[in-house]
């Protein structure tokens, strides 16, 4: 019963595979086709005869850069909030909470204006820099750094290890779950970006895959196999990563263990 309900949820995802690799015209077949035939020709066509590789690389580059920056900024700020007593710490804590509460849709217009004035429209930087800091990432690192014994930092001070070296070589490696969670959640958010690049770019050169897909959708509506293949290309990295790490992703989203305990 449980599994049946759950399977219902992935039927649409499964159907992308069916349509992408089925025979020509399978879309228009009644009753619907259920079995994928694994014809990869349309997929190869999409990858070789269009700019699709470019979009994939754009997405990979943007996502990678965002992940690296988010982990770095989150670790630094998380360390400051967890370990360094300084005036303004509480203020920053509330400032982060405030960012979490700002409604994203209402900010797009002024954000566009800010990027315009910074001459960042239509650049890779516009895809990355505004997302280079993550509120949940900072809180996550803060929480993990607070668990590290105080003596670890003190012995580093006695041995003359600089704060940055300590963060890089001791604190961050000891906060591996925070790193993993931040990487996974940033990957999903960044790879799935659609509205932001839609507004902030107009050059096909730097478009990420989701945006390209939406243009593709309008241009090639009748070519279902190619369209589904393209969608599958956009989808598969997410499916792969999710397949291997679903347990951690689900736990990260839930903010803790999901199994009942006393």
């Amino acid at each position, binding site marked *: *019963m*449980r*599994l049946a*309900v*759950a399977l219902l*949820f*992935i039927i*649409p995802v499964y*159907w992308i595979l069916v349509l992408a690799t089925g025979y020509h015209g399978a*879309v*228009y077949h*009644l*009753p619907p086709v259920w079995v994928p035939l694994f014809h990869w020709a349309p997929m190869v066509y999409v990858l070789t005869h269009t700019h699709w590789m470019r979009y994939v690389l754009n997405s990979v580059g943007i996502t990678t850069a965002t992940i690296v920056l988010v982990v770095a900024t989150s670790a630094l*700020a998380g360390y*400051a909030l967890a370990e*360094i007593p*300084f005036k303004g*710490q509480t203020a*920053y804590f509330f*400032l982060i909470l405030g960012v979490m509460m700002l*409604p994203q*849709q*209402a*900010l*797009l*217009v*002024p*954000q*566009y*204006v*800010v990027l*315009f004035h910074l001459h960042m429209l239509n650049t890779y930087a516009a895809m990355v820099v505004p997302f280079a800091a993550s509120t949940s990432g900072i809180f996550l690192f803060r929480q993990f750094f607070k668990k590290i*014994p105080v*003596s670890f930092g003190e012995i*580093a001070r*006695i*041995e*003359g290890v600089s*704060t940055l070296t300590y963060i890089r070589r*001791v604190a961050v490696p*000891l906060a591996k779950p925070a790193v993993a969670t931040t990487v996974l959640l940033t990957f999903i958010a960044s790879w*799935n970006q659609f*509205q932001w690049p839609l507004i902030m770019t107009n050059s096909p050169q730097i478009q990420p895959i*989701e945006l390209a*897909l*939406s243009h593709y*959708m309008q241009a090639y509506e009748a070519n*279902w196999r190619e*369209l589904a293949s393209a*969608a599958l290309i*956009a989808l598969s990295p997410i*499916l792969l990563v999710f397949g291997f790490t679903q*347990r951690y992703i*689900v736990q990260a*989203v*839930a*903010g803790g263990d*999901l199994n*009942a*305990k006393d």
Partner: protein
Amino acid sequence: MARVTFRRVMKTFGSHDVLSPLSFEVADGEFFVIVGPSGSGKSTTLRLVAGLERPSQGEIYFDTERVDQWPPHTRDVGMVFQNYAIYPHMSVFSNMSFGLEAQRTPKHTIAQRVQQVAALLEIEQLLPKRPGELSGGQKQRVALGRALVRNPRVFLMDEPLSNLDAQLRDHMRTEIRLLHDRLKITTIYVTHDQTEAMTMADRIMVMDQGRIQQIGTPAEIYAHPSTIFVAKFFGSPSMNIVSGRIAVDKNVAWFHPAHSPETPIPLPTSVSTLLPEDSTSHTIYMGFRPEDIVPKPLANAFAFAFLPTGELSTSSGDATVGAMVRDSLVCGRGWLAHHCSRPRRCPPGGPDTMMSRPVSIDSSQPDSRPKSHSRSVTRQQLRDTVWGYGLILPSLLVFLIFFYGPALFLAYIAFFHWSIFASQSTFVGLKNFTTLLHQPIFWQSLLNTAYYVVAVVPATTLLALALALLLREGMGRFGGGFSRALIFLPHVTPVVATSIIWVWIFNPQFGLANVVLHFFHVPPSNWLESVHWALPSVMIYTLWHSVGLYTILFLAGLASIPRSVLEAAATDGARGWRVFKRILWPLLGPITFFVIVLATINTMQTFSQVYTLTGGPHGGAGGPAFSTTTDSLLIYQTAFLYLHFSLASAMSLILFVLILGLTLIQKWFADRFVFYR
């Protein structure tokens, strides 16, 4: 190797005095043990030597160098912590070499040093191992090695043996002492364990409540404790103390015990010479060690016994005499202490006079304390402030430039006529808003959004709750975790990619949706191309895409309900619906509230699926007859298709206020009706 000197060192945290002025000296190469109960200030004293704390007042010297303002790593101290502070993710070798690497010591020197120390401690075979593979005793050695590698002038140990079992502790005690005898490094060792202090120390410093009680060799401290605290602290069972008064009669001092003043005891001269001059005007405490009590009669001993009846027996000599009759008190091997009854009220300078080897304090030096006090505080605070702000700076800039800046700017352009092409903007007051209110499409978008939110939020919440209850129980054959993941999966998929398949599912001729309707003998629908069904189609997609997230949140809420509560309900005979209504639902209150707030905020801002499912080639922008034009879609179109930035900003501001207002209303509602644990 260094001599360590404290001169009137004080430490305060806030208004709390942790250390009263301390003055003492640790000789070069000495094994100096600081002992006292928890909260006595012994660890703070050690941390002051290490530089982990700065003194509020006073001076600390290593030999002749004043070090109290030096940062820790410049002091050349090695420290062993109670929990060893070995980094679990590094090999033993890396742990030992980490500090040297930070000092940019040449690689071959590091390797050589680590090998030397490892050989000394016989831990060479452990070097490639991870700390997790080591036993307690091995970790202890690694911690010692890590401190020794740096060739410290002073070796500091903070309760290093308290994590070991009793047998190993005895062994390591001997070993650390032997190591010290070989290396002769000045060592300051903090412990609360009197046995450790007695067996390891060259000299012991006893502390209580931030004060030095006594400094002396173990023998001195045991035989001649200078305060009642010290007397009680050492020895097990501890020393017996009798209070009383001294009266001199016919050149003989008589001790009148407080519990039986009418039966005074004559004190022999060996004891009475120890009495202070003004002893007759003070309460006098007489103490004796339990092991000095032997059955009477015994020769060679001078002693006296207080029996409950007041009967007194004495004898004289070297050993002890006395009788133990139930709770009788016996004073043996004449020992007397003069001390005021409350240690905290000791006259100034009291602790200093108790030291067996007092430090010569140069009284000609003017008191420079207040200056050093203020300087140290600001320097440390400044350092923390600089680092604190330095580390938050990258994220702070991102938040300010790309979030708070735009939020403020939004409030600005909503009241101006502003164009991306014009350099000037003109103040127009509420004109943007009045224009907006006269646009039918604005009202339509608000209605669409309201319809969308009112339909989607309850549906998602209920479905998520139902799914969570379904998935709640443990791991089945395919594991609750697996089903959980499948339901959650749509939420992580990119909207555009999965929209493609839903466009096909909603295809009026060949789509799956109509096939399903046909199966149930329901007439087919035009879905995305119908005025009435376009928005509900988007709702179905949203439900599919987001319900997994809320299910997971509900599952987390369910998991936090203790199993014992449910078991108690089951024992009471509660079943199914009753359990849900009376137990689960009230306990799920906070998480339900959270889900509703989150779902509302998210659905009010839905954009991508509206855009891709109905905004593109399907029925023009915003569905047939604007039936799917929601607020976020309208903002997008107004700003980025028609370039009316001011109008779009006014709209955004309204959305901003609406979302904030809804959150507050929901919060108000929840505060009244939701049961928080």
